[in-house]
């Protein structure tokens, strides 16, 4: 059964490309939102298995939002994305409760699957 994914990013172009890539590789993209507020609401409504979360949102910091989404025993898998490279900040990512970080240009189904497995 394909994993359900919520894409949270303020760049529409990225959201469209990510949906196309992930869907072509077997993921079920259940929703797209452009900001942190909407993200919290949609996570509660859709309960996606994976949240693809941009580090930099107009109204929220991705790390803080990840921490919030993963607190209180939630089992949601948050994967942080950014066009900047945060891979050399593993502690920050770990502390946020996210499962991992993928540079936007390297996003692919297998990479995402590997992180949430």
């Amino acid at each position, binding site marked *: 059964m394909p994993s359900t994914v919520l894409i949270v990013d303020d760049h529409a172009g*990225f959201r469209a490309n990510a949906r*196309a890539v992930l869907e072509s590789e077997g993921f079920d993209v259940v929703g797209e939102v452009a900001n942190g507020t909407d993200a919290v609401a949609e996570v509660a409504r859709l309960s996606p298995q994976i949240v693809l979360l941009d580090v930099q949102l107009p109204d929220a910091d991705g790390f803080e939002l990840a921490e919030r989404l993963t607190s209180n025993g939630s089992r949601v898998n948050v994967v942080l994305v950014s066009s900047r490279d945060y891979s050399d900040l593993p502690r920050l990512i770990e502390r946020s409760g996210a499962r991992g970080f993928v540079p936007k240009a390297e996003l692919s189904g297998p990479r995402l699957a590997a992180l949430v497995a």
Partner: protein
Amino acid sequence: MSNRRAAAITLLALAVAVGAATLVALSDHDTSKVATIALAAPLGLVFIGAGLVAARRRPDNRTGTLMILTGFAWFSGALPDANNPLLFSLGSILGAVFFGFLIHLILAFPSGRLSGRGVRALAVGGYVLVAASNLAFMLVDDLVDGCDGCPRNVLLVSRQPGVADAVRVLTVIGAAVLAAGVVTVLVRRWRAATPALRRALTPVFASGGVTLVLAALLVAAQAADVGAAEAVYWLLLVSLMTIPLAFLAGLLRARLATAAVGRLLAETPETPTQAEAQEGLRRALGDPTVELAFWLPERRGYVDTQGRPFAVEENDPRLSTPIALDDEPVALVVHDAALAEEPDLLTGVLAAARLALQKDRLQAQLRARVEDLQRERDFVSTVVNTAPAYFCVLDSAGRIERFNTTLEAMTGMLDDESARGRPFWEVFPVDEEALAARMVIENRGEGIEHAWRAADGGTRIVTWRLTELPENRLLVSGADVTERRRSLDEQAALRRVATLVAEDPEPALLLEAVTREVGLLFGGDTATIFRYTDGRRVTVMGGWSDRGDFVDPGSERVLDGDTAAALVYQTHAPARIDDYGAVEGEFARYLHDQGIRCTIAAPVIVGGALWGAVSASSTQEDRFPSAAEHRLGAFAGLVAQALANADARDELRRAAARIVEAGDAARKQLERNLHDGAQQRLVALSLALRLAQSRLPDDPGRAGEILRNASEELALALEELRELARGLHPAILSDRGLVPALSALAVRSPVPVKLHVLTEERLPESVEVALFYVASEALTNVAKYAEASSTHVRLALVEDTAVIEIEDDGVGGADVEGGSGIRGLRDRVESLDGRLDVNSDPGGGTVVRAEVPVVRAPEPVAAA
């Protein structure tokens, strides 16, 4: 003439007279013997006597000798009375020789010498006529006619009555010619004579002239009628008597010289002017031509009564007689030459004049000495009383005897009983220094410096010294060094403050130091530096007080009334208040309540604007010397300099921080732009390529479509990267220069830009970059905010300043102090010593103008 010779002549004369009288008495043919003896004998004696007196008194004058000879010649007139024929005949020839001598005497008067050929000829003619006519007559006439009992004429050659008559006629003619000649000479001489000479000539000429006329008449009468001749003869005798009397009169005049001297001394004023002295001499000498000239030693020459240089002309007939005292010429008396004939008068009068002059000179010397002393006293008095020094004379116990007016003026003490007799140290030095002054005076100490009390209640610093005077008295002489001391103190204080300013002190430290220096220097109780906050208040920034209470930094005061602070605020100039009791307003009342009576204040002007003021105040009225507020200005200037230094440093720090911030912001913006633009496109491109790759086997059509979109995305990404690169540094600027770079800016601007290039010259790179960014930022702002329809960009090089101006016709009202963009530009421009101005009145468009001085690298020097 010696006494013996005079006696011999006298005896001879008497003998001759007796002889003559005897001849007359024994004569057989003289019909009037008694009359002849009575009149003729004394006449000869009178001539001889008068001649003797004249010769003794005037040995250098021949007149006396001539008179004596004339007297003896007269006695020869008795020979014709002789009964002896030879004596009778000889006497008839010589009897008239007397007249030759008489003519000689008159012509030679008054010198006794015949002067001039004509005069000598006349005299000789006289002798010849009287001798020759009688001789000739006796050769042809027996003389018996008309003379009963006359002896025989031994000289008779032949009695020739016709020839005798002719001789008579010729004799009369000769006598007449001779008389006419003599009278002519006398008249001429009279007319040429000065009044003094005329007085001498008058009696002699009168008697002589009458006598000669009578003599001529006698000759005529003898030729014509014997009876009439007899009468003329007696008249002639009487007339002849007057001649020696005339000479005696002249001699008497000489004797009167003493009286003239007495008159001179009596009638001339005690201290006559030169003119009065001259007039006195004229009267005394009876010579109105007298001139008196005084010797001026400093001119080495004489001056007349008018003070003009005086000299006797060469052809002046008058004589000059100098008067000298102690071998030094004093005066010159120029007088008639005839006065030489009255030497007694002349020498007497001149001796009297000499005495008077000597007395005058002694008096003048005495007067001069008294005047010298008076002048010296006046001079010393003037010096002592006008010298800028204090003089005070003390007795041996240090009590005041007298002091000068300079000390009176300074202390307000009068040099009278109120001060005299009191100890010096109780009167002049201020109380706390009195003991020290007393020690100095009582121990006759060295020069010292003390504060003396001044009339205005203040003190003066006086350096004084003691000088011993006779009778153990003391002269205290003092110099006022207050101003010099104050000036030195002021310069020292200014130096200290300036040094402190140069050391860049903490503001509080500086303000405290300045106010302390100012307060102490000007003698205030308190000094303050305050700042004008909004035109209605002042904020105390720092201060000093010798009471330690009044100044309260940070406190505010209302700026009302005419306080010194308000006056400085109004005038931007130093101000002073000498009595706060008379000033209105809350602040003034507050100061007055604090005990402040007077204040001086000077403005602190920083960067051309009034920042605040420095003030010093005192609880005493009129405490500050005149112009103290202006001297305070020097301290205010140092405060301003320190504040300006601090401002400049702060501004420098701020500019540096802004430059760093601007760099940070620019980099952040660049990263943001990259992140938001090209990076996002490349991310999308990457994902699209992977998507196309995955679709290619199953759906090549879809893969192709994805690749086409990706290619467009890539083109957009490249364009965005180029735009970013341009933003980092416009390559065209470094490659092609400012003008092409500005053209590129204009082309890309969304608002039409008209470029006005007034210089194509390449400028230093830093200048070109700065001007480019000014234009770039300004055009960006025009596009963003101005709502403009057109923009003009002007570039010019004015002398050595590059100017760029961007003007739009938009809405204006821009923030001229600028957001971060303008501030960054301003920093960039000012870092090149340039300036950036923005004018943007609402509705009036915006003008951004930058001026940057162009400093070119020196031309490389060609290698030799």
